[in-house]
């Protein structure tokens, strides 16, 4: 059985239907891609899967448990993590605090009011490990606002990983990144693919085709094509937009 499954998701806002009927399933250990034109409903779909929106119809099952309509914090605690397209960090906090806040080890201490945080060896060790993974070692005490754009993206992913998730949703991880930063991101995701199940929304086709095991194409609120990158090469819609992307 798939690790994460969405069945017949339908989402409307008032009278406008954004997601018609979406069914997706993500196997453990795979890198899954979601693509589609702007306004196709990709981000709305992510919001539904991670609990930000409640789907109007349909069900979402994670690891055998029905999580439809559960609040994001519950879903997050079960091991579903996500990053955001518009960066969504704790801006007054330094880099390492962004990571620490997301550590399950830290979350367990939520009711402690007199113990300190920044000289707690256990927390620091775990945080450094995550920072190492996303390549932010050496900048851990910088204010997160002072990071370069690419590094903020990396931190965004780091926060998602710090929760030690079973599945990670990345919303447009390459958005706004230059060529060099994108290349680094490819390396990072190749490193991560052994440890996590990954789902990415992405408009950069080459990036997605290089990394994904399985790709779903969303258009008009529906899944119009699904398959491995090889299978999708022959898809008409994909070809058209791939040409556009290359040119």
């Amino acid at each position: 059985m798939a690790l994460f499954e969405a069945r017949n998701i339908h989402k409307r806002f008032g009278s406008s239907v954004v997601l018609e009927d979406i069914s997706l399933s993500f196997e453990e250990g795979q890198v899954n891609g979601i693509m589609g034109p702007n306004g196709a409903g990709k981000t709305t779909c992510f919001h539904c899967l991670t609990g930000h929106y409640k789907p109007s119809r349909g069900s979402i099952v994670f690891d055998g448990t029905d999580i439809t309509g559960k609040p994001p914090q519950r879903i997050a605690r079960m091991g579903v993590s996500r990053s955001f397209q518009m960066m969504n960090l704790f801006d007054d906090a330094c880099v390492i605090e962004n990571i620490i806040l997301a550590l399950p080890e830290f979350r367990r201490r939520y009711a402690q009011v007199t113990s300190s945080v920044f000289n707690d060896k256990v927390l620091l060790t775990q945080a450094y490990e995550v920072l190492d993974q996303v390549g932010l070692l050496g900048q851990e005490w910088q204010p997160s606002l002072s990071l370069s754009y690419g590094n903020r993206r990396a931190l965004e992913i780091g926060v998602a990983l710090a929760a030690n998730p079973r599945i990670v949703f990345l919303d447009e991880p390459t958005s706004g990144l230059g060529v060099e930063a994108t290349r680094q991101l490819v390396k990072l995701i190749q490193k991560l693919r052994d440890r996590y199940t990954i789902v990415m929304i992405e408009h950069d086709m080459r990036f997605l085709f290089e990394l994904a095991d399985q790709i779903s194409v969303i258009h008009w609120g529906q899944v119009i094509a699904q398959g491995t990158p090889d299978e999708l090469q022959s898809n008409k819609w994909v070809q058209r937009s791939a040409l556009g992307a290359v040119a």
Partner: protein
Amino acid sequence: MVTLSDISRRSGQWITPQIAVFALVLLSLPFWIGPIGLYQYIGVEIAIWIIFALGFNLLFGYTGLHSFGHGAYLGVGAYAFGLFQLHVGVSLFGGLLAAILAAGVAGAVVASFVSHRRGIYFALMTIAFGQLFWFGAVKMHWITGGEDGLLNIPRPDLNLGVTSFDLSGNTALYYLIATLVIVITILTWRAVNSPFGRILQAIRQNEVRASFIGYEVWWFKWVVFTLSAMFAGLAGGLFSMAQESAYPDVMSLHQSGLIVMMVLVGGGLVNFWGPILGVVLYFIARDVLGAITETWLLWYGLMFVAMVMFKPEGLAGFLAELKRPSEPETWTKPAEEQ
């Protein structure tokens, strides 16, 4: 830029040099307050309002929840203390405990209505509840004494079992409150640097992200609201003890606004010490400006407006910038300091 969430290099300590200096100033105050032209009772007032302001800033500055009705809990504490002395028995700890609990319960009830609200609706709801308490205090004269309030509340002795201290003098009362202030300052300092405190700050910075990394945001808001109401209740209990009376005025929108002004002017949005600076500045302004001109509130108001316009980081932000050039911020791993 300075923010509340900057990590102090001494965040892991119980007593930092600042706290030590603060404690020294507080404890020595009775010896120099007279000579500098002020009087003992202002020390009592300042100390009481510091307790109120520290608790308020947990909510206002640290969690970013802008309550405009916090005078209500100060008032609830004041009435609870007074009613306890008048009807239950003359006891210091009983009265203070009653004040803290009553304000805590009031705060918890209000918090369950407001902790799912955000931004302006949160502020509006806190005002509405604040007015509700004020109105109740004015109208329920058979309990509260109406507009006149509770009068002739006895000042109980401090009874420590082996020995007991008479608190009828303002200096003795001051020492009791100053001791409480020191303990509360240390606890608050620890709290804002503890996991619980850092989560509150995370919620201020980005509520959405906080819930996506697994935190029940409303629970934290509920707890911190209740907690700050309890601080206010303690301050209120001490206030009615100091005044030997409790009246509805402290619950008015005016008072609730004053605490916001004090905390902001002092720099509560950017610094732990902000609320304390703000309280001291307000009371000194009241007495020094008040001695010169009857319209001192006009000048205080103008100063506040100017502060919001040009320096919303307040006095603490201003001071931080003054010392910034001479002391460049260099980060070291706190773990290595041990």
